[in-house]
Each structure stands twice: as C-alpha cells, then as structure tokens.
C-alpha cells in the first residue's frame, strides 16, 4: 500500500510536476522560483531568511557557468534544485549543486533574422505542469519537456521578417501561456497572445493597437495604426482571484516623430488588464499619451494590497519609464496616486486622473531638445521589487537626460522605423540609484547612488536585503530598510539581468547573470 502511494505520488510528479496551484501558492515553497518574478504578483521577493543583514558579508561564489552569448539577461526558473536558464533561441537545465548542465536545447536562428532595436537576448522561461516554455527570437513559443529538453510542441506566434521578435519570459497562468512581442522600433502592430499549455493552440489574441471599429481606434488617424508599435516585450503579472492578466504596452511607432500619428495612440504606453479566459480588455491606463520619447510602459506590474484613505485596496503599481511612479486600483484601473521618482523635465505634473500635463518644448525637434529622462527612461525592462516586510518598492533608477531629435523615416517592413533619436548626456553627467519608495504613495524612503545608470533588476529578501547589479560589474547587497551597502562582488562584466533566490541542498542561494556568466552565491 505504501509502495502504491509512493508510486502514485511519483506519477503525479511526472505528469503534473508544476500544477498551476504550486505557482499560485509560491510562498508555500520559498526554495523554488517558479515564475519570472517568483510570484504571479510581480514582486521579485524571496521569503528565504538564511542570508541576512548580519551574515551577507560572508557571501561567496559557489559556482559559475559560462554561456556562449554576451550580455545574458536571463532570470532563471528554479525547481527542486534545478535551474532552468535561457539564451537567444536556447535553454538549459543546470544542476544547482554542481553547476553542471543536465540538458541543453537550441533552435537555430534563421540567417535572415534581424534584431531591430535590441540585441540577441532572452530573459527567461515559464514552467507549468511538465513543460518549460521558451519564446524565441524568430517568433516561436516552444514547450520543452522539463526532464529532457525535448520539444513537445511549438507554436508560431509571429513573422520575424516584418520586424516582430520575442525576448521575454512567457507567463504561465491557469492552463495557458501568455506571451508578448518585441518590435516597437520596427513599425509592428503589437499584441498579447495566450496559448493552451497542453497543445499550443492559440486561445486568444489582444491587439494593442485597435483596428477599425474597435474601441480606441479613434485615437489614431489614417493608416498610422498599421505601423503603430505597441510592443509587449516584458512579462506581465496575474491576479488569480480577479482572473486578470496585467501587461505593459510599449511605445508608438515611429518612436520620435509623432507628426504622422496624431492622437493619444491607444493602447501604447499603457497597462492593460485582460480577462484571462477571453483576452478581452477589462480596463487600461495610459501613462504617456502620444509618446514621442520611446517611453514604453513595458514593466513588470507589481500587485499588492494596501490601505489608502483608510480603505483596503487591491493595487497595481509601476515605476514607469517616463519617471513617474503610479498606483492604480487593479480591479478598475482607477488612478490613485502618482509622482516623479527620478528627474524629469517633460511634465509639469499629473492631473487628478493621472494624465500628464506636458511642459512646453519637450517634444523632439529637428535640432534636438534636452529632456529628462532619456529614451531608455528612468527605469527600463529590468524588474523592480516589492517587499511586503518593509512595504517598499525598490527601483533601479537611471538619472540621465538626452537631446531628442526628430527625423523623417519612411516605413519599410522589417527595418528600423525610429523617426529620430537621441543624443545622451556624457557619462559623467549621468548616474544611477536604487530607490526605495513607499509602495502605496511613491514617497522616497532612501536611495543608494550608483556610478552610472543601471541595467539590472532588483531582488528583495525576507533576510532584510536588496540585491542588484551595476553596469560596471558590481553585484551587491543593501540593507532593505536603510539602503546601506553590506556586501559587493566584482563579477567582471556588465550586469543586465534580474537576480533570483532559491534553496540548493537546503541552503539559500542568490543567482545573477553578469555579461556571459551566471554566478550562484551562497554562504
């Protein structure tokens, strides 16, 4: 009988290794990192407590793994001692104890594939049941067998020949895998797709640029919507109770020349809340109407509950690329709070509904206009972190301006469609910081200054720590309550990835990709 029970348990492990309930209840197994942000709420927070403010100074490299590709941006998935990592059109399972790979998978990048506006990269995978889901540069969502890396199915999401691509980690929800697309600098028409996790059938598609007859189409003129951008290249979040998928939408196209697309250009530079069953739009909130600065709203949304005005609210928050921090009601999209968290010169402020009031002379011009922040924004794709212990949101912040200029760019499918560009300030005039903001208000609690604007995300832990990396290769730990630096390590390469934390052999580890090396640290 006992044997049978064991057999049944092991069968269920094989056939449903990561049922959706495990992801929903991620806090019950803090030793694993089961989805891009560890939880569906986009927190990038680890409840592990072995590494603390008292002992973090003893953190050491346990192993390192070299990749063939530079500037790895992967955020690993960690499941029962195994790390699942991805690169451009590749994935691998790595033994967490030894750092030795267990299987690898590769899909050739077609010779006529072009990355337009970004490098060849991949930011991670999703896991559900017995499969690992990887999005490829050339537009396939691939389901791999968790145990072997053998392909179970693949679905063609997009046509790379007209400028689409994929770099983000998919998001696994109940029975479905949700993906977004890159190509905002190539005049694509963006969308968000959900596929049946079992067989790769398309469940629904949400076009981020509404077509004729659809609500929001009136915010475009002529045929501009056809090349309107609205890429969806960063992983979203999910509320399993409201059953809403939250996703950030990128800039309109062409990026810097808004003359050819008068109007607000919905749903670019917005958060959209989609019904998980149908993909129908429940609400949207546009951060930068008629954007002309490349300020995608492609950020990981942070979902949390907090008291506002004495009332407990279900909230969604984001530190936006446009340098404002926003707090919305995540059931309705209602604007509740917003304020700048970094230097900005493009808006006088936000009106009572959260719409920005632009300053004069902040639009790109022929000669160029100096505006803060620059086109990469006050923060970019890399993840923020929400720490339920402190109630703070930690944001890797970029303090840099640029001279924005506008040019004519004829649209040609599969080529860059910028309509201008920017001249960044010299390196010594720019800086970076990790900023701790009060989650429900955006009030600054502390900041830790960095030598240059960062490209790495933030992890917070229940050990009272915040981890992040610098463009000069420093991987470091700060006190989550004060921002005081407690430990740092020179990795030898620029860090443009998100840290994760997990258990290996019962002990807490921290992992970060730095250039082409994945480091795993422990005490």
């Amino acid at each position, binding site marked *: 009988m006992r044997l049978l029970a064991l057999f049944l348990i092991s069968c269920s492990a094989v056939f449903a290794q990561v049922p959706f309930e495990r992801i929903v209840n991620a806090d019950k197994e803090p030793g694993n990192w089961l989805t891009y942000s560890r939880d569906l709420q986009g927190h990038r927070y680890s409840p592990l407590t072995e590494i603390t403010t008292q002992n973090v100074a003893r953190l050491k490299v346990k192993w390192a793994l070299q990749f063939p590709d530079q500037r790895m941006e992967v955020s690993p998935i960690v499941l029962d001692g195994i790390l699942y990592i991805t690169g451009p059109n590749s994935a691998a399972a790595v033994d967490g104890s030894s750092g030795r790979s267990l299987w690898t998978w590769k899909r050739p990048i077609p010779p006529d594939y072009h990355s337009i506006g970004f490098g060849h990269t991949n930011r991670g995978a999703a896991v559900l049941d017995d499969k690992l889901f990887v999005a490829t540069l050339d537009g396939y969502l691939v389901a791999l067998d968790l145990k072997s890396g053998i392909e179970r199915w693949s679905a063609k999401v997009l046509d790379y020949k007209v400028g689409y691509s994929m770099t983000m980690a998919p998001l696994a929800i109940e029975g479905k895998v949700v993906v977004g697309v890159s190509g905002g600098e190539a005049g694509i028409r963006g969308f968000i797709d959900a596929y049946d996790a079992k067989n790769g059938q398309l469940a629904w598609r949400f076009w981020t640029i509404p077509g004729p007859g659809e609500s929001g189409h009136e915010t475009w003129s002529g045929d501009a919507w056809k090349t309107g951008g609205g890429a969806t290249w960063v992983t979203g979040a999910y509320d399993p109770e409201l059953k809403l998928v939250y996703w950030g939408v990128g800039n309109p196209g062409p990026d810097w020349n808004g003359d050819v697309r008068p109007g607000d250009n919905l749903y670019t530079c917005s958060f959209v809340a989609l019904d998980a069953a149908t993909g129908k739009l429940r609400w949207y909130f546009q951060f930068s109407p008629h954007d002309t600065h490349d300020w995608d709203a492609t950020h990981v949304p942070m979902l949390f509950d907090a008291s506002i005005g004495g009332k407990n609210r279900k909230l969604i928050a984001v530190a936006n690329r446009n340098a404002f921090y926003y707090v919305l009601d995540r059931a309705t999209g209602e604007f509740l709070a917003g304020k700048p968290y970094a230097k900005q010169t493009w808006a006088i402020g936000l009106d009572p509904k959260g719409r920005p009031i632009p300053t004069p002379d902040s639009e790109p011009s022929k000669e160029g206009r100096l505006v803060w922040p620059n086109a990469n924004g006050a923060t970019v794709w890399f993840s923020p972190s929400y720490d339920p212990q402190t109630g703070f949101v930690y944001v890797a912040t970029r303090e840099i301006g640029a001279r924005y*200029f506008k040019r004519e*760019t004829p649209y040609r499918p599969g080529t860059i469609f910028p309509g201008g560009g920017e001249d960044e300030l010299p390196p010594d005039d720019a800086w970076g910081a990790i900023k701790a903001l009060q989650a429900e208000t955006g009030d600054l609690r502390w900041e830790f*200054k960095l030598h240059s604007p960062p490209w790495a995300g933030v992890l917070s832990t229940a050990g009272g720590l915040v981890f992040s990396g610098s463009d000069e290769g420093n991987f470091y730990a700060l006190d989550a309550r004060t921002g005081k630096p407690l430990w740092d390590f020179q990795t030898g390469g620029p860090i443009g990835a998100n840290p994760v934390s997990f258990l290996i052999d019962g002990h807490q580890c921290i992992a970060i990709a730095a250039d082409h090396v994945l480091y795993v640290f422990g005490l």
Partner: protein
Amino acid sequence: MRALATALFSILLAASTRGASPQSPPATAVPLQQPDVASGKRIFESHCALCHGLDGGGGRGPSLRRPKLNHAADDEALKSLIENGIPPEMPEAWFLSNEEIASVAAFVRSLGNVPPEILPGDPARGKTIYARSGCSACHILNGDGSSFGPDLTDIGARRGSRRLRETLQNPAKTVPEDFLLLEATIASGQAIRGIRLNEDTFSIQFRDQQGRFYSFRKSELRGLKKLRGETPMPSFGAALSPVELDDLVHFLATQRGKP
C-alpha cells in the same frame, strides 16, 4: 513637400542595386553614384543616430568622432561593418544599397577626421618649442615622452587648430571627456592627485604624475574630489609669443598618427 521629396529620394536610393529584401523591387536602372557625405548624413540620422547620436557623439552605441574606429581599420572594413552589423548589438543595414552604405561610411569617416588645414607658423620651429616647453613630461608623441596626459600621436587628426590653440592657452576649458583629475584623501589625511583610470560604485583606480597606480575602496577614503574642469596642464598663453603659438599649433596639427 521638401520632406516628401527627401523621403522619395531615400526610397529610390533604397531600391537600387542590391535587392536583398523581398520588399525591394529589382532596380537596375539607377546609375551608380559616388559616395555622398550629405546623403550619408541623412541616412545616418534616420538609421544610425538612434544609437550613435545625431552628431556621431555616441549614446547607446559608441562615439564615432575619432580617427580610428575600433571595429573598422579601413574604409572597406567600415562598409562591411555597416552592411553586416556587429551581432548581436549592432543591426545589419541589409536594406541599404552599396551606394548608400558607401555614403554612410564617408559621413562616418568625416566625423572623426579633422581635414588638414592651411595654417600660419612653422611646424619645424613648433617641434623645437614642443621639446623645450616640457610637453613630453606629460605626453607621449610618436612613442616618446611620459603618459600622464593624453597621447598626442594623432592629435592633429582628432582636433582642429582652433581647439589646439584654445587648449594651449586655456587647457581647463577643453579637458577631454574621458580625462578626469581627482584628489583622494586617504585615512592618514594625505591627499593624492591623479588621473582616473577606472571607477565603479564601490572602487576607484587612478595614476599619479609619477605613474604610480592606486586602487581604493571608496568607503575607505576620507574624501574623493572629482576636479572637473581642472587639469594639471599649465597654460602656455603667456609663456609663448603669438608666433611661437602658431608654430606649436601647426606642429601639433601635423601629428596625424601612424598610417
């Protein structure tokens, strides 16, 4: 209307000989054209300035305002680089014709290379002035001298005569972007001045005038002053006569590097 004409011109250019893209109609009737810096500039502003800046001064990508490019030793290499990109960071310009690529290359070359000028003064006398003024105590020129200040071997290709003159008269006003004088105060209270070699959030490395290297954790320093707009170079505005200044500027302007 003019914008429309420019756009049509670009489209026509793009539809020329290579036809690498299925979107480009085959076009053999367009005659071959010589590289044209002005049209290269237009294409650069539309497709390259996004990363390299409107004036090639750099941004997401490196500055191209230099006589020697790290990834392109000569014009052929530069054209090949524009066509093929540097995977994975720099995209290929597969959609440009050979003529367009040549024009972009000509424009890029024009960014970093100061054209020779007709100058007053005698470069031979300038060479003597360079030697007796002690310049080599801080600068290397054609392999000789000390390395505290910038290498001057190709200074004539990097700087025009006006800028050279200004630097000799008022060096603090023209400190190069990557040249930072700093003063670090160590635990004993001693202040050390040097030129920054590297820096990150937690540490800094620099070299003093005697060529000694220093590396400190920033947290162990009592003070760290970045002396922006300051330079150890003295002004030669008063030390040299106007004629001597002409001679020295002319001498420096002829220093265009090794072939």
